[in-house]
Structures are given as C-alpha cells and as structure tokens.
C-alpha cells in the first residue's frame, strides 16, 4: 500500500489515491463515508459534466458559445471537490471552474450566458454562494481569502474554496493569498488543479519546487497532494480541509494531479505541445472510467446508466442553451447603469449617444 503523504515537507511526495486505476480500494483509511445514493449521484454528475463538456465544445464550434475552456479529464477534481462542500460554503472559481459553480447552484443557462459575454451570467441567484469565473489568473484566490475572513468575522462555520491551475500557482496573488490565510488562520481551501500545462507551458517549466503542495509550508498552512483522477481521494481531501476550516484550524492547500483531455481552450491545438503517448497514458486514468469500475463492482452502476445520463444531459444542455439564446440581449444603457449603484449624470448623458 502506498504511504499516505499528508504532511508535506521537503521530500518528494506521493499523491494520495483511494482507488486504484482498476477501481479497487487501495487506501481504506481514506475512504470517504458516502451512502450508495451519494456514490451514484457523484457518478451522475461526472457523466453529466463530461457530456455537457462535449456539447459545449460543439456549441463553441457552431458559434453558439463564446470563450469556453474544456474540462474533460478534470471531473474528479471539479465534481468531487464541490460535492465535499456544504451549500453555504463559498466558491471562487477560475475561468475553467464552471462545473463547480453550476453544481453549487448557478443555473446552467447562466453559465452559457457568461460564456457569451452576457452580464446576467454572473448574476448569481440569492442563496447561491459563488462568484462568477475569474479571468485574471490568481485574483480569485484573494477574494476567497477575503470571503473566508468574512465567515470568520461573522463566526459562521463555513469555508471558502478557490481554484487555480499549476500556472496560477506561480502568480503573486497565490502567494499573497496563502500567506494571509496563514497569518489570519482563515477557513479557506486553495485547490490547485495541476493538469500539467498552463496553456502550453509544461509543469517542469512552471516551478522548480518538488510539488505545489510544498508551497503551503512557507505560508504556515497545511499542504496535501492528491491523485486528481480519483474522485474519492478528492472528496476525502476536501472534506478534511473543510473540517479543519470549520474547526478554526485554518487553511489548506490541495494540489490535485490531473489532466485535461482537450486543449486549453477551443482555439488551441494541443498536439503542438503534447505527445500522443502522454495523452494515451492519461486516458487510461480517466476518472469516470475508474469510478465506474468501482461502482460496477458494487452493483451500483451499469453501462445503461451511463447511456441514460448522457441522454438526460444532452437534453438539459439543449434546453439551457436555448434559454440562454432567448435571454434578452444586454443594452448599452443597461451596461451604463451597471457601473454604479446610482448612475452619475455624465453617464446618464452618455446614454444619448446610443439611442
């Protein structure tokens, strides 16, 4: 059995896995407590998200979506980490982290509107604790840190989680956020999805550190490295981090080693910087296939289930994209009115230029 590297210091660490690639439990101690229904729900969400991603790529090609960053391959990190949270916890996502905010309550059609540059996309419904996706790499890390301080000041036992990539872990804001969270002992989880590339730059050119998880040491917070293709490891790590946050034990940095099967965005060509062999190796670690094997062995999931969820997801995506397309267009005067709580006179006057 692999050793569990929950404490990260200066040696190379091995990432925590709970499931083997064949869907066998290899780390019983770290198996999260989940009912059969919960296990099925997690699988449902992962299959749904994969289908939605496939559809989104097509919709993008048809010009029906705007900027879209594919997620296939990262379902375990995205779905698992959100599933481990409570509804009251807060999510501050990067631009790729749309599944997390949708499963946390943002209606799917609004995610499509966001992609299409419609500001209603970011108009999160009351009671849904998420921010809209962040384009400036790292900025959201600081927002999560501030939101976590808000929870602490209000004496609420909630946590904030924020996501970035291996590239994002090089930003100054990342270090500033970790450091503040350490100083103020904030209930925040910094979740780095290390998918090996920042656009085209490989991890080896991103940092000379042995792992991103190591960077927690300098901030005086907890750092862990996990297998990001193993949804159960993700859930366990986030559950533990959330519990630490709720108990006043402070922040956690989680590095999840994962892979995105598609290029960085719809306008990139991954074959320019990734080899077929590498892609093949990671395909063999597909988080959905691995989890499916586990569930099939437990008699909780079949191929028919997958097919059924795919159909459901396709229908839902179609419905939601239509809803996005039918949403009234933004107007310049609406845009002008959204700059300030009450529109100053000079802006009122500028509306006249667009009548």
């Amino acid at each position, binding site marked *: 059995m692999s050793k569990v590297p929950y404490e990260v210091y200066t040696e190379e660490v091995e990432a925590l896995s709970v499931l083997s690639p064949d869907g066998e439990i290899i780390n019983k101690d770290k198996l999260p407590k989940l009912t059969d229904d919960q296990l099925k729900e997690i699988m449902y969400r992962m299959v749904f998200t994969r289908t939605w991603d496939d559809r989104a790529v097509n919709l993008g090609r048809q010009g029906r979506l705007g900027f879209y960053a594919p997620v296939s391959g990262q379902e375990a990190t995205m779905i698992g980490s959100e599933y481990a949270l409570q509804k009251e916890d807060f999510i501050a996502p990067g631009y790729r982290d749309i599944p997390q905010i949708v499963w946390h309550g943002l209606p799917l059609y609004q995610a499509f509107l966001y992609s299409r540059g419609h500001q209603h996309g*970011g108009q999160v419904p009351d009671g849904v604790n998420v921010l809209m996706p962040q384009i400036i790499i790292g900025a959201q890390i600081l*927002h999560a840190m*501030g939101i976590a*301080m*808000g929870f602490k*000041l209000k004496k609420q036992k909630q946590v904030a989680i924020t996501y970035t990539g291996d590239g994002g872990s090089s930003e100054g*804001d990342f270090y500033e956020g970790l450091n503040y969270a350490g100083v103020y002992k904030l209930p925040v989880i910094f979740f780095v999805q290390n998918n090996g590339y920042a656009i085209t730059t490989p991890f080896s050119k991103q940092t000379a550190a042995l792992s991103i998880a190591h960077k927690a040491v300098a901030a005086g917070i907890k750092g862990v490295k996990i297998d990001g293709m193993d949804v159960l490891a993700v859930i366990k790590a986030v559950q533990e981090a959330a519990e630490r946050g709720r108990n006043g034990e402070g922040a956690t940095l989680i590095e999840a080693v994962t892979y995105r099967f598609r290029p960085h965005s719809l306008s990139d060509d991954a074959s320019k910087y990734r080899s077929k062999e590498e892609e093949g190796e990671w395909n063999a670690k597909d988080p959905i296939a691995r989890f499916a094997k586990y569930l099939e062995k437990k008699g909780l999931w079949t191929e028919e289930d997958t097919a059924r969820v795919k159909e459901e997801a396709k229908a839902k995506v179609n419905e939601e994209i239509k809803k996005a397309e039918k949403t009234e267009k933004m107007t310049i005067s609406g845009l002008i009115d959204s700059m*300030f709580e009450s529109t100053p006179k000079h802006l009122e006057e500028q509306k006249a230029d667009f009548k």
Partner: protein
Amino acid sequence: MAQMNMKEAIRDALRVELKRDPNVLLFGEDVGHVGGVFRATEGLQKEFGEERVFDTPLAESAIGGLAVGLGVQGFRPVAEIQFVGFIFEALDQMAIQASRMRYRSGGRYNSPIVFRTPFGGGVKAAELHTDSLEGLLAQTPGIKVVVPSNPYDAKGLMIAAIRDNDPVFFMEHLNLYHAFRAEVPEDDYTVELGKANVVREGSDVTIITYGLMVHTSVKAADELEKTKGIKVEIIDLRTVSPIDIDTIVASIQKTNRAIVVQEAQKSSGVAAEVIAQINEKAILHLEAPVLRVAGPDTVYPFAQIEDTWLPTPTRIIDAVNKVLEF
C-alpha cells in the same frame, strides 16, 4: 465644533463610521497598533478591537483582494495602501476587480470599499511616495476618485465614501495632513461625492483645481487681486471622477475664462478631462483657450527640485494673465 487638521478629520470620520456600522473594517500595512505611518488611524484599534482595525502582511494585491472578498460578504472595508506609489501592486484588485464587480455580477455583488492612500508632493518624501496618480484611476470605469483639500471636506467626503456602495479611491495629500486646522463638526455629516465647491467667488477668470493646488491657487488669486484687482473664482473639484461639470460651466458662463491647475503631469490627466468637458459644454462662453498649469511630463523628481516642479503661484499668475490677455 472642534478644530481639526485634515488627518484628525479623516480619523474622526473613520471613528464615526466604525462606531455607526459594525460592518466597517479598517486594515492595511501598519494601520492597527501604531495607527499607520502617519498615525491617521491612531487609537482606532484600541477603541474598536483587532477584528475591526488590523495590520496586514506586506502585500498590496492581497490588501485589495481581501477588501473585494469582504465586500462580497457584506462588509465595508476601508483599505489603506501605505503610499501612492504602491497602488500598482494592487491595481488589478482596485481597477479591475473592485471596479467591475457590479457589472460582472449583473448587480448581485458590489464593492463598498474605500481605498485610502496618502499622496502628493512638496514634502521631500522618498521616491514613489508622492506621485499624483489620480488621473490613472479616474480613467477606470466604475470607481470614484476623491481628493479633499481641507479638514471639513475630508471628513464629510470620507463618511460619504464609506457609505457609498461602489468603490471609492480616496487620496489624502501629504502636505495637507498637518497644514492647518479648521472647524469640523464632531458628529456625522457627509459631503456629497461628485460635487465641486466654489471656494472663492470671482468674475474675471475661473481656476479649476483640487487638493493642495486649491491653496496654491488661492495664493495666486490673492496676489492677482492685490496687484491688479483681478477677481478670480476658484473651484475645488473635491471629486476628480466623476467631475462636476455643471459647477464649472456655471462659473465659466460668468467669467468666460478658465485655467486648470493640477499637481500631476500635464498630459492625459484630470485637467485634460476638465478641458474636454468644457469644450463639449461651454465653448461658446469662452473668450480664450483654457490653459493647464501642471507638472511637466517627466517622472516625479522627489525631493531635490520638487518645489519648482510643482505648480507655483507665479506659474498660475502667468497662466491667468495669458488667458486674460488672449
């Protein structure tokens, strides 16, 4: 009423708001225990506790981002950037994150933040401690930029800024912190953001200015009146974004001549914006072009020659004479 200098007036405003609203938080580098490098927040941590008034680690982007996150949580952060030259480290959080939160979220979240920073020349401070960067921020949509020129305004504008649900960048001139005392009410009152003040009435020419330059302009106006009987009207913008063009136009309708005085470098800044708006709204009332008296377009030369670099009464008088003789 009490006699206060501008620093005391700002501190008083912060105290009033900390007391009135438990959501107001004050933080930045060194603001807590000692009350900031200028002691502007002195005593406030003692009075309101370390949860409300606190020191941060030395990282400006994080100060800005902390403010944005707390704003989302319903707090009203007053975040200090220790000196103006260090706002660049925080500029993403101020000029991109805070300023467009309302837009990005379709109104779901806002940024009820005040970013405070000392700035302004003539005090022989270190490099990058004094530059006038208000024009840079004024070009940012979604943010208001305030530059008070006296204790009364400073307190009223600060209270208004804290109560405003949009981000306000509040610039405190170093040379005005201790310059003079004035009557300041001890209770709470506001001075409306975006509203200029006619600080001196006149009929011959209008000077539009803000911050320390209000006082330099008053010196020039006194001199012009004494030596030549010229009656200068002086408008203190108080808020450099948005600009109160109505007050300016009303004045120009009366005087038909104007100059704009700013400490900042000449090009593309607040003065240029004022003149552009005058051009749009009052050109037919003008008898002469509107001139600018400003710093030259160089880096700010801290210490050595700042006294000649900054606009002086003499340069202002020259500009006034030019527009009168045009």
